[in-house]
C-alpha cells in the first residue's frame, strides 16, 4: 500500500488526480474506517494541520482538517470555550476524522452533534477540484449546504482540507449523578420523564451493569447554582421514577468517555431511537455496550462481528464499525440512497475516493 502525506492542498489535488483510488486518513484513530482497498493510495493528512483562524469574540474557528482534536480543545479551553459536539476521541482523532465519521461523545446531548456545529469546509473532490462549501459565519443560507453533507461521509465524496466550526462558551462546573434501575424498561421510563421535563442535562448516558441499568447524568453550570439544581433533579427522579439507587459520582477522567469500558476487538456505533433500544439490546449478545446521548446512540464492542451484523439487520439498523478487521465499515442494514448517489456522481464520478 502506498502512503502519501501531501504537505499542501495543491499536492493533495495532484495526488487525487494521479491516483486511481485514494483514501484519506487523519491520524488513523478509527482503524476499521481505513479498510484496505486494492491499490488505494492512503493520503495521510496529518501535515495539513493547525488552527488557521480563531476569533474568540466571534465564537468561530477554522482549522486544517488534519488538526488533532486535542490541539483545538486546548486552544478553546484557554478562552473558556468548547466545541459542544464533543468529538468522540479527544486524544487521538483529528477534526477531519471526527467530521467524516460523525463521531460525537456524550456531551453532544446538550447542544447537538457535529452537523449542528460545522459551518463550512474547503475540500478536494474526486476530480481533484479544490473548492469551498458552506460559509464562515454562524448563519448562512446561500447555496446548497454541502458542508453538512460531509458529516458522516467517510471521505467517499470529497476530502476535507479545512473546516470551520461554531463554538460555545463552556460552563465552569459539572456534577455527575448515577441513577440506577432494576430493569431497562424502568431506566427508559426515567429517560422519557427527563425528556418531558425542565432539566437541562449536559449529558445523559444509559449503561448496563451487573443486575442493574444505570442512568449516568451530568449537570453543568455556575458553582453557586449547582447544589440547588442537583437537589431538585435528585428529588424529581426519586419521586417520579422507580429508581433503585441514586448517588453522586466523582468526575473522573473516564466517567464520561463512552468507550472507556468497550475493549472488544470490534467497536461499532449505531444511531437508534430510545424506543428501539429494547429490541436491539435483546437481539445482541455483546456484553460491552453503552447507550449514549439519551439512548439515541449505541456503542457496542464484541470479539466477533457476525452476530452484531445479524442483530442490526433484524432491527433494520445500520452500524459504523470503528475498530476491527472489516471489509466495509458500514454494517447491518444497507445505506444506499439515491440522493447520496447523485452527489457521488458529481463529486467523484470516477469512484476514486474510497
Amino acid at each position, binding site marked *: 500500500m502506498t502512503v502519501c502525506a501531501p504537505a499542501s492542498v495543491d499536492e493533495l489535488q495532484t495526488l487525487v488526480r494521479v491516483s486511481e483510488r485514494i483514501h484519506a486518513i487523519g491520524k488513523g484513530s478509527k482503524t476499521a474506517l481505513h479498510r484496505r482497498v486494492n491499490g488505494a493510495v492512503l493520503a495521510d493528512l496529518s501535515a495539513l494541520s493547525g488552527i488557521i483562524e480563531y476569533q474568540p469574540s466571534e465564537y468561530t474557528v477554522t482549522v486544517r482538517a488534519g488538526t488533532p482534536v486535542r490541539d483545538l480543545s486546548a486552544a478553546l479551553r484557554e478562552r473558556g470555550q468548547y466545541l459542544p459536539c464533543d468529538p468522540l476521541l479527544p486524544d487521538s482523532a483529528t477534526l477531519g476524522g471526527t467530521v467524516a465519521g460523525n463521531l460525537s461523545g456524550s456531551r453532544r446531548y446538550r447542544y447537538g452533534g457535529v452537523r449542528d456545529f460545522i459551518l463550512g469546509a474547503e475540500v478536494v473532490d474526486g476530480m481533484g477540484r479544490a473548492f469551498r462549501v458552506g460559509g464562515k459565519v454562524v448563519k448562512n443560507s446561500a447555496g446548497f449546504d454541502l458542508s453538512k453533507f460531509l458529516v*458522516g461521509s467517510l471521505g467517499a465524496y470529497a476530502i476535507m482540507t479545512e473546516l470551520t466550526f461554531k463554538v460555545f462558551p463552556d460552563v465552569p462546573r459539572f456534577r455527575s449523578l448515577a441513577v440506577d434501575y432494576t430493569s431497562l424498561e424502568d431506566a427508559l421510563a426515567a429517560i422519557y420523564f427527563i425528556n418531558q421535563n425542565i432539566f437541562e442535562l449536559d449529558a445523559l448516558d444509559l449503561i448496563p451493569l451487573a443486575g442493574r441499568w444505570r442512568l449516568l447524568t451530568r449537570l453543568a453550570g*455556575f458553582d453557586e447554582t449547582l447544589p440547588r439544581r442537583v437537589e431538585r433533579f435528585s428529588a424529581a427522579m426519586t419521586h417520579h421514577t422507580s429508581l433503585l439507587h441514586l448517588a453522586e459520582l466523582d468526575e473522573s477522567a473516564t466517567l464520561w468517555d463512552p468507550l472507556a469500558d468497550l475493549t472488544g476487538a470490534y467497536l461499532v456505533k449505531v444511531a437508534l431511537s430510545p424506543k428501539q433500544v429494547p429490541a436491539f439490546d435483546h437481539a445482541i449478545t455483546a456484553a460491552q455496550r453503552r447507550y449514549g446521548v439519551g439512548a439515541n446512540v449505541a456503542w457496542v464492542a464484541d470479539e466477533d462481528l457476525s452476530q452484531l451484523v445479524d442483530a442490526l439487520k433484524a432491527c433494520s439498523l445500520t452500524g*459504523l464499525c470503528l475498530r476491527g478487521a472489516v471489509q466495509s465499515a458500514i454494517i447491518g442494514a444497507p445505506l444506499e440512497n439515491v440522493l447520496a448517489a*447523485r452527489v457521488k456522481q*458529481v463529486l467523484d464520478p470516477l469512484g476514486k475516493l474510497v
Partner: protein
Amino acid sequence: MNQAFLKSLRNIYPAERLLTRDVELLPYESDALTAFSAVPGAVVLPVNEAEIIDTVRLCHKLAVPFVARGSGTSLSGGSLPIPDGLTIGLNRLNRIKRIDPEQRIAVVEPGVINLAITEAAQPYGLYYAPDPSSQSICTIGGNIAFNSGGAHCLKYGMTSNHVLGMRVVLADGAVTQFGSESIEGVGIGPDLIGLFVGSEGLFGIALEITVRLMPQPELYRTVLAAYDDLGRAGDAVSMVVASGLLPGAMEIMDLLAIKAAEASVQAGYPDAEALLIIELEGEAPQVEAEFDQLRGIIDQSGAFETRVANDEEERTRIWKGRKGAFSAVGRLSPDYVVQDGVVPRSRLGEALVEISALKAKYQLDVANVFHAGDGNLHPLILYDGREAGALEKAEALAGEILALCIRLGGSITGEHGIGMEKRDYLPAMFSEEEIEIMQMLRLAIDPNEIANRGKMFPGGEAPALAQHGMHPLERAGVISRE
C-alpha cells in the same frame, strides 16, 4: 399550458383542486416579495403524498417546471410561480401525523404551519424551537427550503438543526427517505438532511418530516434595554457575548423600527435610538444567576432605561413589537424591501455605521431590525413605488448592503434564501467553479431543471419587476400584515 399535461393532471385531481382560470390563479402570482409576480399555468392542491409524487413524475416526464408552495411568505421570491409552469400548493397537507412526547419528536406533513407544531406539543411541556416571525402562517416545508431561523435560534440552531428525518420526492420522481427518530438524525452516512434543508425547493418536495421537540424552558428572563445610540446597543451585545453568557435571543431594533412597531402594535417601547432585547432561558436557578450577571453588564453598557418582563404578559408585549416589526414598517411607507444579510458578529457596529452612510447616499429611509446574537441583519428599505425609479433605487441600496456583508466576511443571506431576488449576487459569494458544482448537483438530481426553475442560480429570464403593491394573498383577504 401544455394540453397533454393538463389532461394528465385531470386524471390526478378533481376540478376543484386543479385551478386554471385567471381569477383562481391570481392569489398565487407572488410571494411576500411582491416586487415580482408571474402567473402560473395552473395550480394544483394535492391532499396526499401520492398525488404529489404523481404530479412530480408527470412534470418530469413532460419537462414542465413546477414550484412547491407552502404559504407563500418567502421574502426572496422563492415561491414565485414560473410563468406557464405548475404551482403545487401544499397547504392541504397539514396533518400532524404523530407526536411522541417520550422521544420528543413530531412527524408532520409539509403544509403544517410552524406554530401548529408548538401548539400540538404544548400539552406535553414541549415546543418546536425555530420561530420565524412568520411562524403563525409559514409552513414547515417552506422552513425546510430556506433553513428558516428566528429570534430564538442562538442556542439550538435553525430549521436544519431540528429536522431528524424526512421523506422526499426528488425532482425526477424518485422517492427516498433519510434520517431517523434518533436525535442523531442520519447518524451513519452523509448527512442528507443537512443537504436537503436549505436547497430552496430545487431538489424536490419534502413529503413527510420528523422534527425534534424541545422541553419548554422552566424560566425566561427577558430584558429590554434602551440606548440613545445604535452603536452602544451593538457594543452591549459584544459585552454579553464576551461574558460567556449564552442567551436564547439577542435582538436589536433601531429608531425607525421602534416607531413602526409603536404605531402598529403599541408595544409601549421607550423612546430610544436603539432597543436591545435579550432573553435568557432554562432551568430557574441557573437563569436567575445568569440574569444577575446580565444585569451587571447591561448596567455598564450605557442603557438609559432597562425593563424586565416580570410575567408572561410583559414578555409577550416586549416580543410583540419585535415580531411584528416587518409588517409594522408597512405603516410607515407604501413599499419596502426586506433585506437579509449576515456579518461576523464582531463587525456589527461597523456594518451599522456603513448602512447609515448608504442611507444618506441614497436618500432613502432604512429601518434596522436584526438578530444581533448571530450577526444577521434585516435592513428594511423604505420607498414609494409610485415614484418612477424608486424601486430600482431601493434595490441598488439593498445591493450595496449585500456587498458590504460580503466585504466584512459574512453572507448575502442568513435565512431568507437566494430565491429570485439574490440570484445575481450568488457569484459575489461563490467562485465560478463552486457555482458550477452546485449546478451540476442540481442537474444530477433534476436533469430537466424543472424544480423551481429560474431560482437561486444567476441568469435566466426574470419576470418583470412590479412597481409596488400588496401581497396577492393580502389582496384576496387570505393574509394580513397584523
